[in-house]
């Protein structure tokens, strides 16, 4: 009995959490991407070029995520969705808007503007550093080795 009890505790404490969180992330993240795909189609039907639809779709998602952060809904979605709302570009917009809102009381310059990239700065820094190193390697290989 005692052994069974221990087992059931372990099962309930660990396994369902991984599975539940993963399913939530899958459904919510997939839905955001599906919504993006629908937006792409709508912009295409509206007569935009292929390069423009991509930017417009990303900008639309950023606008929606910023507004939802402003009215306090994004946090509730994020608590349920986990990585499902963090990994899409919505998470990037949310991190900037929430940091800006959080420091609003310290003023527009020292509060909002200086803290805007508090969380998103990591993404841009690592993105630029890695892209620069990889770009440099690829440029050297393409031009001097091949």
């Amino acid at each position, binding site marked *: 009995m005692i052994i069974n009890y221990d087992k059931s505790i372990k099962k309930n404490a660990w396994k369902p959490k991984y599975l539940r969180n993963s399913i939530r*992330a899958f459904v919510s993240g997939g839905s955001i991407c599906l919504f993006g795909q629908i937006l792409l189609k709508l912009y295409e039907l509206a007569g935009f070029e292929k390069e423009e639809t991509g930017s417009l779709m990303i900008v639309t998602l*950023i606008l929606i995520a910023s507004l939802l952060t402003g009215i306090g809904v994004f946090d509730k979605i994020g608590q349920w969705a986990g990585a499902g709302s963090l990994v899409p570009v919505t998470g990037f917009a949310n991190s900037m*808007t929430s940091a800006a809102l959080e420091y609003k009381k310290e003023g527009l310059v020292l509060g909002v503007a200086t803290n805007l990239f508090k969380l998103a700065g990591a993404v841009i820094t690592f993105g630029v550093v890695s892209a620069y190193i990889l770009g440099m390697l690829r440029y050297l290989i393409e031009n001097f080795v091949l």
Partner: protein
Amino acid sequence: MIYLYAFLVGGLICVIGQILIDRFKLTSAHITASFVVAGALLDSFDLYDKLIEFAGAGAQVPITSFGHSLLHGAMEKANEVGFLGIGMGMFDMTASGITAAIIFAFLVAVFFRPKG
């Protein structure tokens, strides 16, 4: 069919992030930063372009595409003007997204009150 692939691929990328959060107790900043590096790495073998062709928004919406776009813009400019193009073209493809994020975040911070 592209709608189904967008859902599946986008969902799977998010599941990878969720498992990393749950298993290794990483913060959201660690996840997004590593995903951007992963996107740039995948672009260096043109793998990410194939994924976008296959899954559309399923590959364009996750933050991995930010790393891909940075490197892509850099290489496009580098092919035109040479080595300096890497720096000149870095933000070419991501400029609209970053601009939008700054503008909207600033406006929301000005016009909304912080919650909680």
